[in-house]
Every structure is written in structure tokens, then in C-alpha cells.
């Protein structure tokens, strides 16, 4: 068997793939966080809960309405996004004039309440969610065997990230969004409905988290705890990348996912904490984050 640095190539590639998959979810989630933070100046602690909600909506759609993966891929983000928009309208919109920390605390409470409710109803154990028929099986790439579903997750998440980035950089809506990020009062004076834009943006961020949740459902089990496990890591990703640039958030997500995968090969004990260690090092060398502008 071929070896690299004393590790079989198969194992190395396998863990790199796992890293890439994790990185896809980090990227999708930090993308949503960055979009929300950019406009609303709120760190959405409920992002993990919304990711979990996406997975659960997919699971419930299948169990009670017979709607499969592809339907859920569209419906679940829509439902989570609408719920997010409602939360923004009812609660978050009242917090914009306050210290941004209150937004963090509110969404933290929201996350606890959502996760607590799901744990109350479904218990802590995970529910299985089958891989869709069309994506079962695996293909041999010559140097490794790639399960089709995992390949799909990597490609799809990359496509979503690029599409979102293009939508923000190249479309009229994106231009409004960026303008409102810079100077909401002025944009409002030009006749743009900024409060609506805020609601839509939070809904969009929540929908992205929901989408990530649906894609995660067949890989990880659908469990009420899946959100809180990932959100703290995503916070570290966001600190490393800096929330100034959308592209930065995405690139950092993939990069740190890969670092985590590599650590699993060479020093498995540290794989849980490697992202936090990287965060600490980045803070020492570049306090503003890799892609961040100094606040």
C-alpha cells in the first residue's frame, strides 16, 4: 500500500474527504452568519438551531407527508427561512438600536428554546435519514472510492456558495444589500425599503442554514443536538476568517474543514480542538482575522 508520511494514502484521502464534507457545512453556515452579520450587525446564535431545524423538517416531511429528499431540499429551507423572517419581524427588529450583544443573547435563548423543545419531543438520540435513491452507491475515482452522496454534498455546497456570492456581488438586489450594509439611512432615503431588506436577509441566512441541515441529514443523524455541536466551531471559523468578506468566510470554512481532516489522520486526539488552536494562533498573528478589515 502506498504511504505518505507514514500514513496509508487511502486513510489520508478518506479523512481529507471527511474534512471537505465538514468544511462544506462550515462554509455554508459561516456564509449565512456573515450575510446576517453584515447587514443586521447581529451574531445569529440560532444558526445552529436553524441548521438542525432544516434536517428535522426534512425528516418530518418524509415521515408525515411522504416528501423525499429533493422536495425537502426546496421546502425545508423555505420553511426555516420563513420562520426566521417571522422571528426577525417580531423580535430582532426591536433590538437594532441596542448593543449588538443583546442580539447574540436573544438568539442564544432562541437556540436553547428550539433545541430544548426538539429534545423534549424526540429525545437526544439521532434519527436516521436515508440517502436519496439517485445518489446511493459510490464511484471509483482510481485513487479512491467516493460515495456519490458525499460527492454531491461537496459540489452542491460549492455551487450554493458561489451562487450566493454572485447574487450579492452582481445583482441589483445584492447591490441594495451591500449599500444598506454601508449606510442604511442613505439607502432608505433613496426609497429602498430597508426594514423589508433586513427581514429578507435574516430569512435568507436562516434558509441557508436550513439547506445545510437538509444536506447534512443523510450524513450525520438527525438529532436535536447537531446544531449546538457545530455552531461553536463555526464561530471559530468566523473569527479566523473575519466577517468582512463573504468569500473569506467560505474559503476559511473549507480550509479549516480540511485542517480538521488532516489532524484526524496525524494526531486524532487533537481533531476536536485543532480549529480552536488555529483560531488562537490567528488571533496572535492577525487579530483582525485572515480576511478581516480592522473593525
Amino acid at each position, binding site marked *: 500500500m502506498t504511504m505518505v508520511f507514514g500514513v496509508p494514502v487511502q486513510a489520508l484521502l478518506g479523512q481529507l474527504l471527511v474534512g471537505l464534507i465538514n468544511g462544506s457545512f462550515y462554509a455554508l453556515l459561516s456564509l449565512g452568519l456573515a450575510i446576517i452579520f453584515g447587514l443586521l450587525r447581529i451574531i445569529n446564535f440560532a444558526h445552529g438551531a436553524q441548521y438542525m431545524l432544516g434536517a428535522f423538517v426534512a425528516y418530518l416531511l418524509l415521515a408525515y407527508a411522504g416528501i423525499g429528499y429533493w422536495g425537502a431540499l426546496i421546502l425545508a429551507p423555505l420553511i426555516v427561512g420563513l420562520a426566521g423572517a417571522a422571528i426577525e419581524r417580531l423580535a430582532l427588529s*426591536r433590538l437594532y438600536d441596542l448593543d449588538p450583544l443583546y442580539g447574540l443573547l*436573544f438568539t442564544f*435563548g432562541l437556540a*436553547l428554546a428550539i433545541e430544548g*423543545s426538539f429534545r423534549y419531543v424526540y429525545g437526544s438520540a439521532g434519527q436516521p435519514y436515508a440517502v436519496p435513491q439517485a445518489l446511493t452507491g459510490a464511484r471509483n475515482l482510481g485513487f479512491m472510492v467516493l460515495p456519490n452522496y458525499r460527492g454531491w454534498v461537496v459540489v452542491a455546497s460549492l455551487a450554493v456558495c458561489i451562487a450566493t456570492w454572485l447574487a450579492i456581488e452582481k445583482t441589483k438586489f445584492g447591490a441594495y444589500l451591500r449599500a444598506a450594509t454601508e449606510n442604511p439611512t442613505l439607502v432608505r432615503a433613496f426609497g429602498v425599503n430597508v426594514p423589508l431588506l433586513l427581514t429578507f436577509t435574516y430569512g435568507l441566512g436562516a434558509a441557508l442554514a436550513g439547506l445545510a441541515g437538509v444536506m447534512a441529514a443523510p450524513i450525520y443523524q438527525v438529532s436535536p443536538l447537531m446544531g449546538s455541536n457545530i455552531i461553536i466551531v463555526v464561530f*471559530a471559523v468566523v473569527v479566523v476568517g473575519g466577517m468582512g468578506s463573504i468569500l473569506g468566510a467560505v474559503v476559511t470554512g473549507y480550509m479549516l474543514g480540511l485542517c480538521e481532516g488532516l489532524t484526524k489522520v496525524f494526531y486524532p486526539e487533537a481533531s476536536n480542538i485543532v480549529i480552536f488552536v488555529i483560531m488562537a494562533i490567528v488571533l*496572535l498573528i492577525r487579530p483582525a482575522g485572515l480576511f478581516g478589515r480592522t473593525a
Partner: protein
Amino acid sequence: MTDVVLAPPAKRSKARGIALIAVGLVLLAVAPFVVYPIFVMKLLCFALFAAAFNLLLGYAGLLSFGHAAFFGGAAYFTAHAVKEWGLTPELGVLVGVAGAAALGLVVGFLAIRRQGIYFAMITLALAQMFFFFCLQARFTHGEDGIQGVPRGHLFGLIDLNQPLAMYGFVAVVFLAGMVAIHRITESPFGMILKSIRENERRATSLGISVGSYKLAAFVMSAALAGLAGATKALVFQFATLTDVGWQMSGEVILMTLLGGIGTMIGPVVGAAIVTALENYLATSDFPPTIVIGLAFMLCVLAFRRGVVGELLATRWGKRLAGRSED
């Protein structure tokens, strides 16, 4: 946190203050005979923890989302020192406090490099890293935690297995911690912290080395949180992962927010409410997480001054605090 209005200490009438403290002391002395002593000790530990957290949030304006690391970390250090090294309780607590302070120095040093929301996220991430360390390190015994920690003899003399002796020890620790926090907030150092909270740039322009003040406040807060955690380990005779998890960090924020950020007794009141609520919910099968989450949302939306803050804002509260009505 900008919209929390603090009671200016200067005009507070001294007599009323002393009366309040006397009432508190009487309560502290009577409590173990009225309520289950273990519950009161638990409450005092959490009250001190919340007050230590409030030292950072209420006076320096820094929201740490990782204070469980110091609370739970100290519990582990003390439990290990007492059980494995056979130290006496007071030395064990000292080990816990020193460990928490050292941990606070590292976390604080990294976290103060960023402000506001990033500060919160960094403390959360570093505390989570410490959680994973505790999950895997040998001396913490992973999921089991350190069990059967002996309470031992205080100074080699007083047997802490006597419930009243243990209660006395916890009460003294609590009072000492509260006095320390009060002294810190009223000192010139505390004034400078408040000025940094109000306007960091202006403080810098006045020649104050903002970073070192923030770091000092962070270490003090961590050490006091450690004092609470170390004491809790002796009371319950175990140290587990629950005390280092992010949920615990959230809980102490809720206690402070619910009681009143930036007030001296707010965190104590908040800790009492949350601990009592959890005790009550423990007997039902309704999960406390949901209640805590809803309490958070309610506090942030409608109740940002907390119980004590709202009381102080009423007519009666203003009179009590000895302030002229404005």
C-alpha cells in the same frame, strides 16, 4: 452594554446600605435552618459565580461566553488536588483559584485582541476547547468526572463533613468574594474599568492602557469564578463536565441578566431565581433548557435591566438607593 443605567455609588446613603447588609447577613445565618442547606450552598456558589461574571460584564462591559471554563476548571483542579494530592480544603480551593486565574490569563490575553461580539465568540470557542480538553484529559476521568471528593478538615482542624461547618465555610467564602468584588468596583481601578466600558477610545486617549486593565479585570473575574467553582466541588464532592460546558456559560449570563447587569445584588438575585427554578423543574419532566431559553428571550426583549435594575428604577427603589428623583 450601553443602556444599563447604574446606580451612582457616591450618593447612596450609608445607613441604608448597612441596614441592607445586616438583613443579608441575618438571611445568610437563618437560611440553613429554614431551607435545605445543600440548596443554599449551591445557591451561594452560583451567586458568587454570577457576581464574578458581572464584574466583567457589568463594570468592564466585556461579555464573556466562556466563564464556565473557569468555574468548572477550578472545580476539577480543586477536586484533583484534594482527592489525589491529599491537600486540605483551603489549599485545594487555592489550587482551583490559581488554576482558574492562569486559565483566565491565557483566554483573556487572546480574547481582548478583539472587541464586542468577537470577544464573546472567542471566549466561547476557547472555553469549548477547554471542554474538549477536559473530555479527553486523563485526570478529569472523562464522562465520569472526579467523584467522591473528600471534604476534609479545614486547616486540618474543622471537619467539613459536619453540614453546619461546611455551610459556614461556604458562607465565609461567599462573603469574602462579594467583599472583594465590591472593593474592586469601588476602587480607582473599578472606576477606570467603567470609563473603558463607557468609551474605550476616550480612555485610551487619556493615557490608560486599556488592554492591561481589561486583562486584569478578566483574570480577577476568572479567579473569583474559580473560587465559586472550587467551593462547589467541595460541597457536592464531585467535578463533572456539566460545569465546563457552554450551557453553564449561558446560564451564568442569564443569572446576571435576569438579576440586573451592573448591580451588586442583581447577580445574587438572578442566581437565586435560576437555581430555584431548576430545582423546581428537576422534579417535573419538563426540560429546563426550554424555560431558560424563553427566559433569555423575555429578558432581552422586555426586561433588560433585570429584577434589581427594574426595582431600582421605580420610585421606591430610587428612595431606597438614596438617590434624588430625576
